[in-house]
């Protein structure tokens, strides 16, 4: 039997009722999916996945198969369900699920790539005390929608690094729903090089005391590329802690979007949250839309947020040039420096270096374009 049949029917009904999200819907104001997809719409194709590295000790289950194990049945399709995650559930019978059993500390990273056009689901369960690094990659496609559920048991630790590739034509959308039990620790970094439309939406619920989530991300957007990171950070109980640090560089007609909502529920006293989003715009037509929001229904909470958009600092640029560093190189150094504190948040040193190298290549591309102009 197929998993969650009733849920799929409900999801299909939801998608049919709402249609493709467009810019007149507040959450999609800066990312007009409907116009990006055009007449093709959401389609009903099933996208693919590829496990590039499966460390030993990690259990795996193909979601298109029958007789799911208990850890899949208990955790699949439990997300609160927005339109696009409903679409991934309704329009895809396929996908992949992983489990790290209780107490297992997996050093070797799990590498998962999503490929092809269409919709796909994924589930990752870390049982109590388990730890893992998840490296998520993506190939370009006309359109792909990934619905990802992540469940962290008590004291579980997940390092999640996601890199979204540069492409002028691809429409890449993902919704991640992350539930974190007491003492669990989720650390995620989203690096994006932008596409026709690129959106990473993450909805995190800190469900138990001492749960933590630390999000960071960078984007480097040239040409007409777009990148949207939308976060919902839910402090459901007290003594939970979250941080967010996002840095964007946009040139040409690039467009960087950050929408970050922190919700501190009633009674979630002693919650601590910090969010920061900054963008550098390198062209007159580049755009950044940074929207941090707070909804606080509790007392004795510490919540800080900030957003800033600017250009490279002229004084810093002059200082470097006066020391003999040519202008193009000095700009590159300052851009790299601007992004560095967000990159430094990546816990895994190999992945940190990998993202640094990709950023450097993207920034070099920028400078080449700037010189041509």
């Amino acid at each position, binding site marked *: 039997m197929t998993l969650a049949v009733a849920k799929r029917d409900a999801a299909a009904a939801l998608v049919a009722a709402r249609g493709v999200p467009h810019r007149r819907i507040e959450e999609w104001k800066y990312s007009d999916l409907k116009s990006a997809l055009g007449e093709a719409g959401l389609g009903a194709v099933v996208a693919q996945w590829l496990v590039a590295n499966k460390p030993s000790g990690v259990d795996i289950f193909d979601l298109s198969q029958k007789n799911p194990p208990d850890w899949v049945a208990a955790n699949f399709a439990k997300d609160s369900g927005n339109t696009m995650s409903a679409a991934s559930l309704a329009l895809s019978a396929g996908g992949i699920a992983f489990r790290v059993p209780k107490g297992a500390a997996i050093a070797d990273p799990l590498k998962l790539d999503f490929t092809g056009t269409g919709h796909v689901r994924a589930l990752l369960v870390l049982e109590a005390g388990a730890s893992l690094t998840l490296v998520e990659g993506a190939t370009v496609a006309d359109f792909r929608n990934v619905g990802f559920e992540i469940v962290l048991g008590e004291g579980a630790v997940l390092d999640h690094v996601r890199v979204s590739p540069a492409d002028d034509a691809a429409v890449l959308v993902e919704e991640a729903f992350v539930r974190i039990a007491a003492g669990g620790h989720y650390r995620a970094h989203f690096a994006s090089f932008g596409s026709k439309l690129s959106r990473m939406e993450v909805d995190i619920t800190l469900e138990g005391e001492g749960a933590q989530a630390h999000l960071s991300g960078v984007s480097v957007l040239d040409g007409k590329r777009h990148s949207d990171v939308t976060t919902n950070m839910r402090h459901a109980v007290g003594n939970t802690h979250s941080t967010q640090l996002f840095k964007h560089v946009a040139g040409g007609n690039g467009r960087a979007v950050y929408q970050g909502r922190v919700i501190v529920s009633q009674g979630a006293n002693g919650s601590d949250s910090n969010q920061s989003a900054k963008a550098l715009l390198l062209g007159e037509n580049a755009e950044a839309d940074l929207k941090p929001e707070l909804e606080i229904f509790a007392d004795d909470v510490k919540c800080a947020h900030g957003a800033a958009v600017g250009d490279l600092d002229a004084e810093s640029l002059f200082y470097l040039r006066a*020391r003999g560093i040519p202008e193009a190189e000095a700009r590159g150094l300052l851009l790299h420096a601007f992004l560095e504190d967000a990159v430094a948040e990546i816990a895994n040193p190999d992945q940190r270096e990998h993202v640094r190298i990709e950023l450097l290549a993207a920034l070099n591309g920028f400078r080449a374009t700037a010189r041509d102009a």
Partner: protein
Amino acid sequence: MLEIKNLHVSVGDKPILKGLTLSIQPGQVHAIMGPNGSGKSTLSYVLAGRAGYDITEGSITYNGEDLVALKPEERAAKGVFLAMQYPVEIPGVTTMTFLKTALNSQRRQRGESDLDAIGVLKLVRAKAKTLNVSEEMLKRALNVGFSGGEKKRLEILQMAIFEPRLAILDETDSGLDIDALRLVAEGVNTLRSPERAMLVITHYQRLLDYIVPDRIHVLAGGRIVAEGGKELALELEAKGYEHIVKDVA
């Protein structure tokens, strides 16, 4: 080495330097003293090539070459160094990375080969020791969290590493206590050489007790209004700028 003739500079529409003439030979240390707003910092920025300073009249010749036509990085590669009054903080770039990038950028522009990481490290360490710049400072982001004294020491360390032919020190004494001042001045003095010229810009005579100049120029209202030997500094200290400026007027 440096010939400034009838230099007029405006910032926006406002004239700041109004006919400044100055000549410095190799091996000499000249001091420019002057009250606030006299144009001292403007002169230093114009020499280093900062944007936003319009030269409306006059010329600056450096080793026979028109300095004004050169970009800031080209000036640096040709041996012009400005120790800045307010060194900028650059988070995300370690001091060591910055020093290596700058040194090799200058070398490349001069057609010299890059120094490798070990070569740079050796050079920097040797010079850092005498200026009391710690390994820990070199690992930190450039100037971030540095005290005023640390920032100025790092400026002088750069001067020691880059070995410029013309060093301009803009208010290097500002914000330093007496111990820091002495350390910085010692660093500068060890760099005095027959091939190197220095232009020391300062408001106060204090620095010139430690870095004794060959010649002092008093800048007021955008022009040199008085010149003399090192004794001029003492006169300024005793009588104040107003007295000298009035005498000239």
